[in-house]
């Protein structure tokens, strides 16, 4: 397997400029002879599809929601980073680059991250020009807030709905191109396989989710912008439909899957309320700007709170443990996510949790309200407080919120080179679906940045190189053996899912898998636990294929069938995550191996043996996949133990 990252030579700060110059260009008159498929219409997909169409390419864009505007990016709340230094507080491209590499615990590729920091400034310009109503100061200029893992204020936001506004901006550009006929949009259409011709990605097979019709689409190149795989855990902050199917089927066709074990557990989510829970809700990290995290100092007090005998306000200041401020005085409540999550778990493991299940800590706004007034707090976080009240029935202006970590984001994804092309020629991967920029831990407000960087400013350049190389005639008829064969595989799987007629629903399998993943491959992982999971998951998978019940048929809107297909992939993918976690005998970022910690319980990296990207190659059904390594070389940033003290 060829894992050449194709990092341009030369000094870090000049690599991208130099590379842009070196890339082949497609003659403007020839662009309309090319067709590009973009799967996904989130920030990454919508921005890529719109920009490619503006350049003159013909684009087909697919999403499973009923409208591209509903992609999961819509749910992002807190903000988007950019090295604008509008606050004059010492920010720069180099600082954003440095923070991101450090935040990723030195497991990301330096050159990609540097480019990300460079183009971050263009993103804000682009979105402002689209009319995105970012928060403003009275002088009419853009406002900023701070986010975890940074000591400068570089996050741009639109109330608590930044993802929504950015996505609607990208959707508006996409809509314009649809109106102009340059993008053909296929909503409610699910990609079920990628078609390879002579080893190159030349198309996809999709299912129309209303009629059940299966169809083939060919193009000169295929871009996957299909988001993350957090729903492998069943409960996560991801939307219900988020899934790994597109990436996983590409993996089965030969694309390497990089760092699948890197998952981010977000510290500020609403705790689980019961068995019925279908998903978890994030309370934006921006809340940690003004909210203070605490639990009672003593277990006895915590126990009384859990039983309802005491309220938060009954606990005297001196009896509270603001553990993040105590342990990390310089970052305080703004430590990165992995650190905040592990500390919450630790406090609860010590019996100091404050909700009935024992799994919850306080996020308290009392001081902020005293300092700024309720109006100012409402202005900043009003919609989040409203959402909190709708879900829990509790008013967070009066009582502290209760929060607990939940699965939120996946840093792993399909392996890509500097050009965002996977090891399968012609198959590009952008946004959360690729692995490239966040290493072992993503900083807050950096996913929106990466999705838009990839879609607006990176892919539209880099894809030109491949298209120029293959030429406009390199397109395969959808009646070719490769297309027909792939469609047959897809149909066979659907028929199989429908024919089992066993006793258990897709959801019940998904829930069971999720519990295994959370217990064994969640916030803390161990060799024994992972080995147990690697034994258990194939058993569950076998039962799935023997005892699944999918009612109905293929020829109509069938949500059980859609879900069954996704769960089938998660059941294989979960095992891959565990294998990757087992292989990585160190702790780094979101990956915490109990065997590898410092005496104070912080993550202990092993740079000598593990500063590589772990990229997995599929070897066939029920075969052990093969691990390949891309070694990470740090020219610019010196690797140190991350310290937020």
């Amino acid at each position, binding site marked *: 397997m060829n894992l050449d990252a194709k990092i341009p030579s030369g000094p870090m700060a000049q690599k991208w400029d130099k590379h842009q110059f070196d890339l082949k260009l497609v003659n403007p008159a020839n662009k309309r002879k090319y067709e590009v498929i973009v799967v996904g219409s989130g920030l990454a997909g919508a921005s890529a599809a*719109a*920009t490619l169409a*503006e350049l003159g390419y013909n684009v087909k864009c697919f999403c499973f*929601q*009923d*409208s*591209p*505007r*509903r992609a*999961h990016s*819509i*749910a992002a709340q807190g903000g988007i980073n950019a090295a604008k230094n*509008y606050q004059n507080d010492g920010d720069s491209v180099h600082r954003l680059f440095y923070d991101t590499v450090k935040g990723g615990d030195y497991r990301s590729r330096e050159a990609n991250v540097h480019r990300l920091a460079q183009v971050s400034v263009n993103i*804000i*310009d*682009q*979105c*402002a*020009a*689209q*009319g995105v*109503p*970012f928060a*403003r100061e009275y*002088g*009419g*200029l*853009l406002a900023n807030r701070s986010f975890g893992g940074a000591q400068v204020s570089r996050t741009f936001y639109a*109330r608590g*709905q930044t993802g929504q506004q950015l996505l609607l901006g990208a959707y*508006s*550009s996409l*809509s*314009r191109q*649809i*109106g102009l006929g340059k993008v053909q*949009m296929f*909503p409610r259409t699910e990609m079920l396989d990628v078609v390879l011709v002579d080893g190159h990605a030349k198309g996809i097979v999709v299912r129309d989710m*209303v009629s059940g019709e299966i169809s083939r689409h060919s193009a000169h190149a295929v871009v996957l912008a299909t988001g993350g795989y957090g729903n492998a855990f069943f409960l996560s902050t991801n*939307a*219900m*439909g988020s899934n790994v199917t597109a990436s996983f089927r590409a993996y089965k066709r030969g694309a390497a899957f990089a760092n699948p074990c890197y998952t981010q557990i977000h510290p500020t989510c609403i705790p689980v309320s019961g068995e*019925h*829970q*279908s998903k978890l*809700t994030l309370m934006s990290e921006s809340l940690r700007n003004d909210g203070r995290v605490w639990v009672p100092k003593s277990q006895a007090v915590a126990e009384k709170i859990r039983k309802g005998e005491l309220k938060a306000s009954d606990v005297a200041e001196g009896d509270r443990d603001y553990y993040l401020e105590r342990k990390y005085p310089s970052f305080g409540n703004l430590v990165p996510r992995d650190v905040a999550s592990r500390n919450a778990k630790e406090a609860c493991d010590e019996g100091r949790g404050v909700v009935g299940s024992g799994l919850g800590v306080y996020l308290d706004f009392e001081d902020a309200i005293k300092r700024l007034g309720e109006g100012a707090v409402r202005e900043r976080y009003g919609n989040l407080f*409203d*959402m909190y009240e*709708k*879900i829990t*029935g509790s008013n967070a202006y009066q009582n502290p919120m209760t929060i607990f970590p939940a699965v939120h984001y996946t840093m792993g994804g399909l392996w890509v080179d500097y050009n965002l092309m996977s090891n399968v020629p012609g198959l590009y991967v952008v946004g959360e679906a690729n692995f490239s920029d966040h290493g072992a831990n993503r900083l807050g407000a950096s996913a929106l940045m990466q999705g838009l960087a990839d879609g*607006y*400013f990176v892919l*539209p350049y880099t894809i030109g190189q491949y298209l120029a190389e293959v030429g406009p005639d390199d397109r395969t008829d959808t009646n070719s053996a490769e297309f027909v064969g792939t469609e047959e595989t897809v149909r066979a799987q659907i028929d199989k899912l429908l024919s089992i007629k066993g*006793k258990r*629903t897709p959801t019940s399998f998904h829930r069971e898998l999720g519990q295994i993943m959370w217990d064994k491959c969640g916030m803390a992982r161990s060799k024994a636990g992972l080995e147990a999971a690697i034994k258990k998951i194939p058993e569950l998978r076998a039962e799935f294929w023997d005892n699944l019940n999918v009612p109905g048929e293929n020829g*109509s*809107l069938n*949500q*059980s069938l859609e879900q069954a297909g996704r769960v089938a992939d998660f059941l294989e993918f979960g095992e891959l995550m565990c294998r990757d976690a087992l292989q990585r005998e160190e702790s780094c970022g979101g990956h915490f191996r109990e065997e590898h910690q410092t005496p104070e319980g912080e993550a202990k990296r092993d740079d000598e043996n593990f500063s590589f990207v772990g990229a997995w190659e599929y070897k066939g059904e029920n075969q052990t996949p093969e691990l390949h390594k891309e070694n990470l070389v740090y020219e610019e940033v010196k690797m140190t133990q991350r310290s937020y003290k």
Partner: protein
Amino acid sequence: MDLKLKVWRQDNADDVGRFEEYQAHDISPDMSFLEMLDVVNEGLIGSGKEPIAFDSDCREGICGSCSMVINGTAHGGQKGTTACQLHMRHFSDGMTITIEPWRATAFPVHRDLVVDRTAFDRIQQKGGFISVRTGSVPDANAIPVPKDESDLAMDAAQCIGCGACVAACKNASAMLFVAAKISHLSLVPQGQPERERRALAMVKQMDDEGFGNCTVTGSCEAVCPKEISLDFIARMNREYGRALIKKGTI
């Protein structure tokens, strides 16, 4: 608590459809309305029946997927709340709950509670944008936007495109949705160059899609989960009138 559900079932766009009754047992007050439906659906599959089809994705009130009329009110009647954010603590034991899809000519039913809202997308494609090419833009701070205007634009821009306004309107008018977009873009300086074109094109497409007229009854504002104000409809009418005058039509 235990509940009785009367749910609209319709196999496809051509089917006439009918109400069917189901029991929902052991419903916890902490469940969301959609989690209650999940429980009912698991039961239906278990007894060999097809589950009730409904749209949902984010379940956080932001994607605009969920769309159902609950006891006669779009999204169920909790102020500023989508169906997915409605919690069962607002219902009581023994209640009968009627659940129907959005009903409007421009939103044909695909199945059960799932409707086709692509008409909204087509309206956006006609003018719901500012024509800027990627990269061809000035520095963000080169376009100052007064905070009050920006805030007002954001009030409009919050629309999640759910279609409840259409479902609630006796004329199935899409005015609140279209007004939100037109207002957002006409309020910010970036949107000025295309102001008139946009208003005319979006309104025309809205009419072509078969949405009804607005008679200002305000039922849309009452159900809107983002509490988009009726004032924006007045603003849109002004924008439309202004565009006609500029064009010389009146």
